[in-house]
């Protein structure tokens, strides 16, 4: 049938290229290539990546259960017709909730050298992950969303796992810790929406850490290779109480063992968490690789939180970028703030020799905020931009802020102070 049309352009390309093409198609289109020609009949069946998203079965009905049945049939058939190893299996389908077929799929995958498993099921009942998952010896990346995970006692860990992402997963704190410590190659860890967790992380190869949730306590026990940290700590009454009563120096406990840190991002109550116990200890560690610090929701009324920022800045000689976000409140003329804090010799005179970009948002015009800006401007000889975004567009308040800023002495001749008022 190779006639006037010309020679077949594509069917004889090596399987690796065909796989590369098919893997970049949505799964429906990939499966449909089976009716193109006799050579294409089973080309799709040996691709090593199967991704089932919301588009794999178009929602033909308003009844979720009917669509769910359809999705289940599609996935089961695809697995059934598939031949060869499956390295990546992803379900990101909001119609699909907990159903018994998923157990069988995971069992099937555990026998097919699965390396990357991503399960993001729909909102609803959490799916209980079957024990066959823990037999997937070759797993390098595991991402679970809205599931229940219960590792058996005999579980020795995933020896090849490099990336673990648990989002809204029901798992006991001991199980999480032991899971982390039993994956020796773990490089990237992301835990989100956990409740009331006191976590100790021991992962000698860990490079990227992302935590979000209600954490009572975080202790980085053995994480010397950490390069990037991003923490968002939510507050509950329990945790607030815990904070009151805590006598540790959290700064040391958290940041004491991460000399290779390059980027630190802290949100919500993170700065508050670090501030506990900070004035009791002098921090000896320098972070020579730390180039970016982002701290959000910092309470400029609390001098301890300001001390956290200052300690971080002065311990990072190569800091290039700083983002600080305040806590969106206009100052009410309360007691006179303790401006002596800034006079005290506890602040070193060291210059911030590499600091180029500073962004300050949610600035309410607190006296401490102004002092902080002054502090930065005096000590940053290579500063290029300092942007300030006020939290409220109250012209009166902003005017007061601007008047103070204009008075500031600047160490950098090239520095621009940009006040964003739109």
């Amino acid at each position, binding site marked *: *049938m*190779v006639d006037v*049309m*010309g*020679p*077949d*352009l*594509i*069917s004889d*390309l*090596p399987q*690796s*290229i065909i796989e*590369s*093409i*098919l893997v*970049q*198609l*949505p799964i*429906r*289109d990939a*499966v*449909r*290539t*089976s*009716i*193109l*020609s*006799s*050579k*294409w*009949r*089973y080309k799709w069946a040996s691709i090593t990546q199967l991704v089932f998203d919301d588009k794999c*079965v178009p929602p033909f009905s308003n009844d979720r259960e009917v669509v769910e049945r*359809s999705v289940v*049939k*599609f996935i*089961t*058939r695809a*697995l*059934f*017709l*598939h*031949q*060869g190893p499956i390295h990546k299996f992803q379900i990101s389908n909001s119609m699909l909730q907990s159903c*018994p*077929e998923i*157990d*069988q799929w995971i*069992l*099937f995958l555990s*026998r*097919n050298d699965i390396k990357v498993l991503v399960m993001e099921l729909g909102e609803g009942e959490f799916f209980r992950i079957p024990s066959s998952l823990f037999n997937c010896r070759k797993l390098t990346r595991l991402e679970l969303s809205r599931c229940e995970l219960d590792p058996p006692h005999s579980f020795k860990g995933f020896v090849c796992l490099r990336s673990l992402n648990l989002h809204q997963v029901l798992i006991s704190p001991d199980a999480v810790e032991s899971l982390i410590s039993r994956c020796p190659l773990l490089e990237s860890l992301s835990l989100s929406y956990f409740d009331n967790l006191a976590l100790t992380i021991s992962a000698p190869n860990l490079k990227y850490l992302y935590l979000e949730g209600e954490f009572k306590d975080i202790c980085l026990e053995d994480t010397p290779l950490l390069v990037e940290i991003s923490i968002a700590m939510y507050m509950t009454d329990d945790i607030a109480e815990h904070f009151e009563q805590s006598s540790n120096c959290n700064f040391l406990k958290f940041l004491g063992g991460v000399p290779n840190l390059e980027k630190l991002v802290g949100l919500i109550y993170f700065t508050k968490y670090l501030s506990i116990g900070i004035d009791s200890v002098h921090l000896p560690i320098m972070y020579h690789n730390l180039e970016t610090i982002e701290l959000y929701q910092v309470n400029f009324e609390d001098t301890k939180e300001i001390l956290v920022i200052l300690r971080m800045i002065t311990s990072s000689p190569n800091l290039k970028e700083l983002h600080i976000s305040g806590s969106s409140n206009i100052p009410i003329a309360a007691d006179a703030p303790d401006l002596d804090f800034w006079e005290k010799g506890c602040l070193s005179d060291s210059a911030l020799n590499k600091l180029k970009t500073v962004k300050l948002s949610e600035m309410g015009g607190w006296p401490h905020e102004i002092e902080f800006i002054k502090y930065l401007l005096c000590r940053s000889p290579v500063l290029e931009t300092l942007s300030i975004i006020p939290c409220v567009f109250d012209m009166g308040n902003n005017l007061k802020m601007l008047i103070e800023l204009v008075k500031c002495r600047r160490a950098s001749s090239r520095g621009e102070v940009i006040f964003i008022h739109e």
Partner: protein
Amino acid sequence: MSETDLAVIKPEMMKPYVWLQTSDDSIQQVEQEIAMFCPLICQEIIQKGMGSSKNCAICLPQQVSPAMLSLILDYCRFHQVPGRSNKERKSYDEKFVRIDTERLCELTSAADSLQLKPLVDLTSRALARIIEGKTPEEIRDIFHLPDDLTEEEKLEPLRNITADPRIRLLNRLYAKKRKELKERERLKNVEVEEEHVDDRSVDDLLSFINGNDGDPKGVKTSKNKKKNRRKKEQQKNSSLKEASELNKKEVNGHDIRHQSSEAEIISETSYLHYAEDDAFTSKPEFDDGDIDDEIDPALKEKIDREVEDFARRLNSDWPERMQELLSSGQERKTVLFTADGFIRRHA
């Protein structure tokens, strides 16, 4: 400029070149640092010391024509400059793949032969974008694919059509027809395949079934009957699935004593075992396109009828399944094994 200045400048101006030979046997000179961007060329230079002169020019794979080499070198020339931003690179890439499909396929092949993975990824993504969302006719048109699948092969429900009984019936009829067509081809083929399992009579099958007692799980059974099932599996992936679906329905609706969820899972698992065993063992089979029973048609008819009888006795509780049985031969065989699985568990 003084003489010493010239002496200093000259070596810098003389960039090293390598000699490359393309598919049409023509040889060209290319700046070394650009050519080295291709892993294959890099390997040839470093490990084998080739390419330094016209005589020992590096022989490029035959997929690399002069035109393709020129395109690839453009790509390398752009990307090997370190100072470019990601945005610049992306925008160059977008423009780079705006070529006609034929050249795009050739380029993919050439890049692959030179092991230039970033370019292979780029071109295959472009090809995927071409394929995405188009109808089969359009795709065949673009890539000059022969439309050589028979109608019933196309109807194999690989897509997720909500089970239309007419299509399923059609499938079964076509599958039968297809087998007959293949039969005729087979008659020319002298080779004897190792599997003649289906020559057994129904009695044999029955005793085979009963003889395998003592297996608590359907799983083991499935392994023993691997050969049989393989045939069925290859031809009737779809009908097996339908059977499994029917199974599920029956199981759920039927009030059977030992019906635990485990049993259900085992039955499902046994199907998965089918898939796996068949997948691994039948791979070469698939590549040949040689999937057949090679049963003598007359004998087949006899078996069909006997199986039908047997199955009807067995399945007297399941009226729906009967409908299916009566309308096809192949389907029955599948059901037989299914039914067997159930007998076993409830023996």
